[in-house]
Every structure is written in C-alpha cells, then in structure tokens.
C-alpha cells in the first residue's frame, strides 16, 4: 500500500463521514425552515389579500386546502355534489334542500352546513335519526375539515376540494 493511496483513503473516509452528517442535517432542516406543505406559500400571498378588501368568496378561493364542494360519498344519492359558497347548505328530504336525499332515514330538514368564512360547521336541525361524525352525535355546530365523513341517515357526505 503506497503512502498516497492511504492518504487518499483517509481523506475519502473523512469526506464520507461528513457527507453523512450533512445529509442527516439536510433531512432535519425542515424542523428549522418548515416543511414544504401545500400551504407553505401562504405567507407570500397574505399581504396582497390583506392590502385590498377582497371579496370573501375570492379570498376563500385563493385559500388552498379549503373545501370547494360538498359531496355525497355513500347512499342513494352517491356522487351528487353541491358547490360551497358563502351561504348555508341545507340537506334533507324536503324540496328546499340543496341535495334532495332519497333516503328514508333522513328527515325533511335534516342538517345544515354553514361557514363563518374560515371554517365549515355542521349543525343538526333536530332530525329524527340524528347526524353523526364517527359514532358521535352532532348536538351543537361542530367544525369539520376536508374528508371528515358526516353521516345523515344512511347517507354519508363529506367536504371535498
């Protein structure tokens, strides 16, 4: 083994050791600089939106990760959906419901989805069989996020993008 080879091996080993340490650091740099989540570009858009009094509908559309539709994912009306706006959305078997659910276990005016501009809530309107999130009965307006399944009679609805 020549002296030069051994020196090269020594330097190569130190380099590999440091590359390993620096790779470990680069894996955990997200702790310091934040993860590249879909919302990471939000702070940039914030000053613009705050600068002029934008319409609430537009600001919500700009907001990524906010639900855009309410969709029936299971039950007789499976696949039907209603776009989310600013106003409340009524679900039930009655004619004034946004989606007329063809479900015997659903009351005429069963549940209402409403927003305060930031968050969507589900509220039971005194239905016979109740509104459920998981196995928990909805008694007061409860905030719901994307993909939380809300059960109305035999129908399951959820907020989608």
């Amino acid at each position: 083994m020549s002296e030069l080879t051994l020196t090269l091996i020594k330097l190569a080993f130190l380099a590999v050791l440091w590359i390993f340490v620096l790779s470990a650091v680069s894996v955990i740099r997200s702790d310091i600089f934040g993860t590249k989540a879909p919302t990471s570009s939000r702070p940039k858009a914030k000053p613009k939106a705050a600068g002029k009094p934008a319409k609430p509908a537009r600001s919500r559309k700009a907001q990524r990760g906010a639900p855009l539709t309410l969709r029936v994912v299971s039950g007789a009306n499976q696949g039907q959906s209603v776009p989310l706006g600013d106003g409340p959305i009524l679900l039930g078997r009655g004619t004034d419901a946004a989606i007329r659910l063809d479900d015997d276990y659903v009351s005429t005016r069963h549940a209402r989805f409403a927003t305060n501009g930031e968050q969507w809530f589900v509220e039971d309107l005194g239905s016979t069989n109740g509104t459920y999130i998981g196995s928990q009965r909805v008694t007061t307006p409860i905030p719901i996020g994307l993909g939380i399944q809300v059960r109305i009679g035999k129908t399951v609805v959820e907020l989608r993008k």
Partner: protein
Amino acid sequence: MPASSTSTWVPRKRRGAELVLTAMAVGIAIFAYAAVGLGTSGSIPADTFKLAGALILVAAATTVVVRRLVPYADPVLLPLVIALNGLGLAMIYRIDQDCPGFCLGGNYSPLADAQLMWTAIGLLAFCVVLFVVTDHRMLQRFTYSAGLAAIVLLLMPLMPLIGSRVRGAQIWISIGPFSFQPGEAAKICLAVFFAGYLVRHKDALALAGRRVLGVDLPRGRDLGPILAGWLISVGILVFQRDLGSSLLFFGLFVVMLYIATERPGWLVVGGVLFVSGAYFGYLAFGHVRARFDAWLDPFGDPDANGQLISSLFGLAHGGVLGQGLGQGSPELTPFSFSDFIIGAMGEELGLTGLMAILLIYGLITERGLRIALTCRDAFGKLLAAGLAVSFALQVFVVVGGVTRLIPLTGLTTPFLAQGGSSIVMNWAIIALLLRISDQTRRPAPEISAIQSDDETQVVKLPAGGVA
C-alpha cells in the same frame, strides 16, 4: 386570514430518507472496517464480506421493524446510531489488530467479535422495547417501581457474591461468565422515575417558594427529593467510587427538575449542592483528589497519569486530519478500546473526524430534545428530555474527561466504547425515543366511518318506512 393555514404541519413518515441514511451509515461502517485492514496489514480483511453481510442484514431488519412498529418515528435517529455503532466496531477491531500480547500486560484478547455480539443483543433489546412498549405513557404506571428498580440496580454491585470490583470502581456485577454494569440500566429506570414523579409534583415544586437575589428559590420542604437525589449520588461516589455515574445521575435529576418547573432556582440549588459535594469528595477521598490532580496537572506525575498523557499525545499525533485508520498507535493507551476510544478516534480520524462524531452525538441529542418539544403529554416530554439529557451529559463527561476539559471519570462513550451493558441499554434508550417520536409525529386519529347502522339509529324503521 385563517390562522390554521399558516401553521399547517403535514405528518410525514420520511422512511425513504431514513433508508438512504441507513445505507450510508452501513457504508461508513464497512468502509471503516476495510480501511482499518488496509492501514494495518495492507489488505482488506478477509471477513469484511461476512461483516458487511451481517451489518446489511441487521440494518435491514431494524429498518423493517421501525417501518412496521413506529412508522412515523424520527427518520435520522436510527441511521446516526448505526453509524456510531459501526465506527465503534471498526475502531475496536483496529485496536484488536495491534493489541494482543501487548496491551493489559499481555492479557488482551480480541474484543471485536464480542462487541458485534453485544450489538446484536442491543438490536434485539431495541426490537423488544418497541414491541413491548406500545405506548410510552404506560411507563408512567411504573413510576415508583422504576425508582425502586433503579435503587436495587445501583445497590447490586455492592452485594456480596455478585458484586465485583474492577479497577477501583465497584460498579459491575458478575454472574457466571457474564459481567454487567447495572448503572446503565439504572439510568433508564431513573429517567422514568423522575419523569413520572415530576409530572405529578411539578406544580408544588414550581409555584411555592421565595425570591432571593432575583432567583426563585424553592421552599424548604420541597427540597426533599433533590436532597434525596443528591444523597444517592454521593452514596454512589462514596461506596462505589464511581465519579462518572454520580455526576450523571445528579446532573440528570437537576436538569429534569429545571425542565419540569421552568425555574432556574433549581439549577442554582443543584449547582451549589454539586460544588459542595465535589469539594467534600476532594477532601475526603484519595481517588477523587487523584483525579483532580491529574486534571489540573497531568504531567506532574507521569507515572500515575500515563493513560491520560498517552491519550493526549494521541490526540496531538492525530492533528487536523488524523493518521488514517489503522495507521496511528492507539494501542499505546491502556483501555483505548473503552474509556479512551475518543482518544483513539481523535488520533486516527483527527480533529475533522472527531468533530463529525461529536456532531452525530449533538444531532442525536437534538432529536431527543426535539421529540420532547413536540410531545403532547407531559410525561413523554419529560422522559424524552431526560433520556436526551442523560445521553448528552454522558458524552460531555467522557469526552470532557479525555480532552482534559473536566476531571476524568469513568463513563462509557455511548455506542462507541466496548462494553455490553452500555450498548444494550443505549439501544433501549433509542427505542424509547423512537416510540415517543412516533406518538408525537403521528397524524391525529381519523374519525372512522361506522361499520354498522345499528350503532347510530335511534328509531329503527323497516325498509320503506317513513322517517
């Protein structure tokens, strides 16, 4: 603007990153092993492929276990530890090459195989802990049992028949051919005990007290536990002559008190108690005084401090880039495979390599403290912080001792030094940290859809009925 959108934290498993880093860590270990062979005898050791196969197999198995049992656990902890363990194995193998018939008065027998076996046992312990401890909060139930276990473990070396005195310190037990250092296991038990105890009593310790010179000092009656901790540490110092463990346990307790109560007053009290204890030790015990003298002026008595001096020469010989693996002479330092392995690393890898190793230790501690920060329950927070702090303290005490920053004490360098109990228990610590990490990084449980209709129907109607 909704506040929720700015602080969205997406739970990510990052097991792919872990796999890449693990592969690099295994690569480093194999590279080190081959480089040792090239440096000492000019050829790659014949059993490199055997070792490489074993390492790859073990690393793959560990990765699979982590993927299965703690899918959301921290991705860098495991690779960092594997790299340290691999480096330690290579260095012990390297010392094996030059030592037989020379070190320890010719009584040296190769240690690398035993260390490899202990590593395997450590990985087994790692998997067992992950299997058994499905939720770290279940450890809180064993708060006082853990405290008792720690005391029993600490007392075991003092018992007749099984306790044995090795090189002045009575910290080993030997049953048959096996010897074990129960202090390492006591470390985990004490961390569990302190965490459980402080979760319950932290309010009394934090809120009551009076202010002296701008520092909140705790109430007299709340000093009980810290005095007990101090007495236990001093007891270890007096009866077992183990400076390192005494320092480690007391430091661990003081830091955990500080973390639990957020009151710097405890650090002041702990510092005062420590200084008085150290002074008392200096006055009362010859071996403590010898350590202090060796720290302040090692060259005053070259015969007694030969080990430390030799290690310092080794570090100087290493310089910035080191002599290269297998080309230094770490075998000249007694116990360069265990207590002084940092000196051996410094000689062969130089300041550059030593800094990388210390950075790996720093990263492991940082991950531990990070887990403590993000943990949602108080017990997990304290336990993770305690384990991370004990790890950091141990590295500080050992490396500080070898580099003459503080008096030399006998603690093992985690994962590097030769020694079964240390390897096994440190792997168990990493398993606990990964378990807590998995709990904290896991996304909030999904609200599951109901399987049966009966569960939610208040009024049951026949099909086609009117609701």
